[in-house]
């Protein structure tokens, strides 16, 4: 059975994703385009026995790209060998801004790719009193036109019907007979120069290759070098021709829409402009923004508390039942202490992550995020960043990985790079459990100043520290990295909309699934490995150590319980994990850490959230990973060879500072490597952040103790 490849294309804010969600529902997945971390959303739809694979391409204004996203769309459409090259394009427009949105549509039609035009947001269009003759539009463009309203789902059947006709009748109806745009003499010569080197290249595709041959990576080797003199001979100037083509296309579109669209007096912007009078106000704008951020991050803790409790209870219930049901063996230990403890450590974050992504999706869907970019652009530029960096840095509060991926909308390489480098310094959700446990050790829960809970204040202080550190590092990088490249703001401020809840829901689901599967794999592997390392040691060292403790304490007068604890501790010390911790103890002793913390530092390199699980495993193999009990055990821990508690304010604070700065996240390094396309930047990121962590902890420990 043949599958049909359909690509959804359109300008940003045209409502492409809503239509994608309408067509595919939950039958979608997010992956990356091969070699680049541009998100690739694909989904399937089944129509009269044929499987249709739908790809949602990133929002694009034209085939003269300005960002990494737009370049990708251009690469896909210019290369019929590309695995995403569509058999059919569903081109989504915002009917209210048809003229502008048709620019890219006419380019795709001229590429000789079958197209269906979707006129989205017809409801708003009609409400504003505009009228449109879709038959005349269809005649002008030469391809089928479908009116839709993605918000209510109206028109989706008509779209499916047209796709069905494509399957049955073939591509003829969906192709225009002749190009909309006719070449000038120079353009014609340039197009032919390309065709002479690459036979059978479609004329408009050849012209686009004449513009973009320098960065299109699918072209043959030395193609660019061979082509350049040809283009010079015919007098082809890249930018000048781009401007000419764009202006001429707009002229053709304006002309073609005459008599097709009847515009009433514009009034649809009124609401957004009025609301922005408040939301982007000189004083109220920033106040509202910081207020919103405060409320969002507060409510994450407040709302997530209950589901997190259920997950923990569920897992400890599961664990104790598994222990009762299964025979006592190493396999049971592995299952309960290794696998279940590890899984619970991951899933317990799911509520916080879901809530954070819910709010982020809401800010994005409503159109507010663009206002944030606009308001803070100037401030961010002082730190070598772009207004768009705000979106990434806010997302970094959830997780640095999607944050780093979202930097691809930043056109300037320098600003994009700095954003990538500093994003991991913003406290992400993985730091939350580490902070929670350590703060609870240090600050009594009942301590408060007026209405402010002291634990909460320390929490906020750590967040502020992360934000200040990231801006500080950004400023240094701005001064160090030299670049002549220009940076732009030029940003569309979409009109405010009520969010489409199914879009928000699918976005949260998508992110949550990615977190649980990706982070889950790492954490489960680590906790299995750690369980093994902590339970076994070289030769019979563990048994010898346990025997020795039993013998020496036989002469002393201690309870069975105390004996069990010291045996356990001796066994851990003799295990592989203990050896590893002991080996690195000299390096971390100046920070106030012992070998047990050393083990946690090593395992949290994979991901910070492993810390709590590691502590649970270390302080009692066989216990459950519930945070409060981990905290109790840590509080009871004594510094080896003394009667002093291990977790004094100095040690806890030093550890907090370490986790605030250190880059303990393999996935972040991997995504930085991918996005910067070199090992240099992740290496710098790792060295600098670890250095900051070490110095910061050292200072903290020495000042406090």
């Amino acid at each position, binding site marked *: 059975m043949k599958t049909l490849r359909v690509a959804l294309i359109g300008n940003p804010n045209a409502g492409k994703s809503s239509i994608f969600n309408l067509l595919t529902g939950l039958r979608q997945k997010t992956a990356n385009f091969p070699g680049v971390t541009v998100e690739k959303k694909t989904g399937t739809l089944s129509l009269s026995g044929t499987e249709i694979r739908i790809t949602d391409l990133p929002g694009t*204004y*034209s085939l*003269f790209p*300005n960002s990494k996203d737009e370049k990708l769309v251009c690469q896909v459409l210019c290369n019929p060998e590309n695995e995403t090259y569509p058999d059919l394009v569903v081109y989504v427009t915002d009917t*209210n*801004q048809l*003229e*502008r949105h048709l*620019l890219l549509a006419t380019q795709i039609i001229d590429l000789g790719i079958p197209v269906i035009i979707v006129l989205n947001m017809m409801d708003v269009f009609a409400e504003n009193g505009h009228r449109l003759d879709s038959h005349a539009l269809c005649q002008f463009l030469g391809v089928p036109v479908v009116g839709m309203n993605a918000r209510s789902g109206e028109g989706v059947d008509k779209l499916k019907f047209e796709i069905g006709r494509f399957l049955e009748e073939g591509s003829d109806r969906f192709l225009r007979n002749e190009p909309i745009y006719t070449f000038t003499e120079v353009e014609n010569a340039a197009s032919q120069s390309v065709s002479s080197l690459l036979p059978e290249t479609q004329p408009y595709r050849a012209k686009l290759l004449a513009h973009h041959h320098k960065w299109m990576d699918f072209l043959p080797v030395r193609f660019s070098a061979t082509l350049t003199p040809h283009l010079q001979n015919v007098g082809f100037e890249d*930018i*000048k021709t*781009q*401007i000419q083509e*764009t*202006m001429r296309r*707009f002229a053709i579109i304006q002309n073609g829409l005459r008599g097709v669209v009847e515009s009433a007096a*514009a009034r*649809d*912007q009124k609401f*957004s*402009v009025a609301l*922005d*009078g408040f939301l*982007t*106000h*000189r*004083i109220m*704008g*920033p106040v509202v923004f910081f207020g919103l951020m405060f409320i969002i991050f507060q409510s994450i803790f407040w709302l997530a508390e209950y589901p997190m409790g259920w997950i923990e209870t569920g897992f400890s219930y599961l664990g104790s039942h598994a222990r009762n049901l299964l025979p006592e063996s190493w396999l049971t230990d592995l299952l309960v202490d290794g696998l279940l403890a590890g899984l619970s450590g991951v899933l317990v974050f799911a509520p916080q992550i879901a809530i954070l992504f819910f709010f982020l999706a809401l800010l994005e869907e409503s159109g507010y995020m*663009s206002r944030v*970019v*606009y*308001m*803070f*652009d*100037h*401030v961010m*530029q002082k730190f070598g960043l772009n*207004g768009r960096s705000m979106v990434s840095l806010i997302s970094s509060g959830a997780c640095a990985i999607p944050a780093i991926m979202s930097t691809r909308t930043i056109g300037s390489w320098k600003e994009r790079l700095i954003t990538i480098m500093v994003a991991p310094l913003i406290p992400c959700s993985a730091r939350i459990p580490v902070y929670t446990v350590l703060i609870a050790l240090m600050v009594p829960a009942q301590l408060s100043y007026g209405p402010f809970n002291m634990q909460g204040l320390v929490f906020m202080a750590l967040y502020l520290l992360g934000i200040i550190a990231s801006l500080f590092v950004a400023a240094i990088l701005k001064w160090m990295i030299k670049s002549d490249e*220009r940076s*732009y*703001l*030029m*940003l*569309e*401020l*979409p*009109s405010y909309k009520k969010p489409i809840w199914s879009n928000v829901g699918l976005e949260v689901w998508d992110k949550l699934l990615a977190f649980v599967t990706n982070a889950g794999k790492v954490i489960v592997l680590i906790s299995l490995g750690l369980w093994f390392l902590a339970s076994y040691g070289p030769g019979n060292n563990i048994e010898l150590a346990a025997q020795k403790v039993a013998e020496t304490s036989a002469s002393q007068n201690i309870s069975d319980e105390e004996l069990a604890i010291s045996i356990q501790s001796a066994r851990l010390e003799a295990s592989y994990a203990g050896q590893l911790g002991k080996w690195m103890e000299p390096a971390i002793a100046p920070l106030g850490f012992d070998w047990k913390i050393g083990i946690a530092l090593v395992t949290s390199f994979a991901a910070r959230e492993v810390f709590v699980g590691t502590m649970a495993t270390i302080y009692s193999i066989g216990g459950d990973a519930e945070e409060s009990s981990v905290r109790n055990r840590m509080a009871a821990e004594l510094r080896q060879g003394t009667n002093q508690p291990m977790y004094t304010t100095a040690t806890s604070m030093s550890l907090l500072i370490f986790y605030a700065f250190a880059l303990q996240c393999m996935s972040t390094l991997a995504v930085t490597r991918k996005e910067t396309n070199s090992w240099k930047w992740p290496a710098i990121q790792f060295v600098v952040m670890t250095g900051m962590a070490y110095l910061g902890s050292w200072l903290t420990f020495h000042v406090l103790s």
Partner: protein
Amino acid sequence: MKTTILDLKVGQNALIRQFVDFEATCKLLTMGLLPNARVELVRKAPFGGALYIKMQNHLIAMRENEAASVEIELL
């Protein structure tokens, strides 16, 4: 000195005449800033540096240096 978008006062309207800056032109065009299009300066960003512009059918934000590259005729 030619008048550009940067010279607009809040609430003032103008028609776009031409573009000074070759490099930025492509970007401006795809955002709908075409010759003869009508622009209105709605407000300036809280911390300065950026402008909030109203076009016939949509709203855009641009930096001051981007605004300085668009010549206009006041209405």
